[in-house]
């Protein structure tokens, strides 16, 4: 890539969400999933989205992925409007969504096969590189059902990274894992992020996780889904999830989150 395009891209944000609204109709009731949400993400920024259940985090991610369309508003990736799903914005889900009819290598190759301009040998090389990166090279021919939950998410990560997307969209990717595995993956993802300069949008319920990973934590409030507050996290990296500084940041965010939840709790109590 030439210097010119590099600097040209630096001017536009990696992602611009401009007053996006989205509602769903379910059983005669309209559900306002997102209400006038705006968000700018710099290139190479790691943004974590947190908020109570049902506040539209997944909906926003789906819209950015191009899997759903907003009712109103614009979404621009690298300055261009998003019209459909594409390999430059790779999505990772809570369940690994690995394909059971392919083995591990086949799964990692799936996205690569859709990349033009790579021959079979090159694709295999790239896939092996990413399997190495997540430490699963010895399992290249394993079947998906033979992997543990943590291994599955690692394969899913390799599968998402292999086609070299500019942006990673991760929807609670580690939620179903045990604490130990999760902590390992925090290390992995931070390393990959800093080495490969990805822009990451990361949804989680775990505030500590958000503070550990994000440059910025965006707090959503539900009914209708809105951005409530944003927190810049300026802690040095690599971060340890158990550190005291990190806990302080987390406490501040937790307090805001509780404030959002309280009115709801009172409603329930009544």
């Amino acid at each position, binding site marked *: 890539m030439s210097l010119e395009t590099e600097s040209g891209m630096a001017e536009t944000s990696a992602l611009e969400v401009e007053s996006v609204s989205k509602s769903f109709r379910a059983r005669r009731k309209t559900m306002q999933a997102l209400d006038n949400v705006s968000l700018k993400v710099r290139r190479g920024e790691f943004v974590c989205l947190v908020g109570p259940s049902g506040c539209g985090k997944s909906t926003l991610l789906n819209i950015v992925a191009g899997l759903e369309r907003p009712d109103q508003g614009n979404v621009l990736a690298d300055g261009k409007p998003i019209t*459909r799903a*594409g390999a430059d914005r790779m999505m990772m*889900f809570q369940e690994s*969504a690995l394909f059971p009819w*392919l083995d591990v290598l086949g799964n990692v190759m799936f996205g690569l096969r859709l990349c033009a301009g790579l021959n079979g040998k090159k694709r295999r090389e790239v896939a092996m590189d990413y399997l190495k990166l997540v430490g699963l090279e010895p399992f290249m021919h394993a079947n998906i*059902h033979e992997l543990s939950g943590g291994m599955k998410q690692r394969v899913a990560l390799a599968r998402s990274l292999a086609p070299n997307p500019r942006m990673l*969209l991760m929807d609670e990717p580690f939620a179903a894992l045990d604490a130990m595995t999760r902590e390992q993956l925090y290390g992995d993802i931070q390393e990959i992020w800093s080495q490969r300069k990805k822009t990451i949008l990361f949804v989680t319920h775990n505030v500590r996780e958000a503070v550990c990973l994000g440059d910025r934590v965006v707090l959503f409030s539900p009914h209708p889904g809105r951005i409530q507050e944003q927190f810049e996290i300026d802690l040095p990296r690599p971060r340890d999830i158990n550190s005291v500084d990190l806990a302080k940041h987390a406490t501040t965010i937790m307090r805001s989150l509780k404030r959002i939840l309280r009115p709801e709790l009172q409603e329930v109590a009544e």
Partner: protein
Amino acid sequence: MKRSQNAILFFLFVTGVWELCARLGMWSPVLFPSPVEIGRYLIESVRDRTLIEASSVTLKRLLIGYAAGLVVGVPLGLLTARFKFVQDTFGTAALGLQTLPSVCWVPLSLIWFGQSEFAMIFVVIMGSVWSVSLATSAGVQSVPPIFVRAAQTMGSEGLHTWMRVILPASLPYIVTGMKQGWAFAWRSLMAAEIYVTVLTGFGLGHLLHYGRELQAMDAVVGIMLVIVVIGLLADKILFSPVERFLHRRWGTGED
């Protein structure tokens, strides 16, 4: 190994008891032929090629008809799952026709196509196509949407998604439907062959029919055995490899 040993021992035992009963003359040999007589018939009819020709005639009808059933049934199932209109029209028709015992196609097929080779093939097609198509569409509808979404974010769309994601994801269902379709096709073909003489070729069913006309019990039982063996072989050759693949990949069942 142990299991096939058990099977062999069991069948040797049954054959032994059978031979013994026949030797003791408990029933008339016309009604109760001994295994040795049946074996003699089988060797004889292999030697004069009647059995081999009949088997190949039957298998040819079955394989051509079944292949056509798949070629029509799988795309029909995909279309049914994809388009609401096809679902409401052909889908409903398939649902109804699948409940029709496939033997019931024999009279219609004979009136339409006469006593011809195609009449037989048509019966096989009708026996298999509905099961295959229904299973395919059920399979497609059972594909977790997250697979499709994951594929889309990797840049898959349109036909690629159908061929590389939805079709393989529904494979377990499709194979079940294929097996059922095979069973229906096989049964209805046998019924058709016993029921009517087609001059273009004598299949196993005809042989069975003539065995009855000639009161040749050794031939009747011998051909029945051949039919059983063909059924088992078909299962081993056509379906076992696919099923093993499914079990291995999906981690279902154990072998």
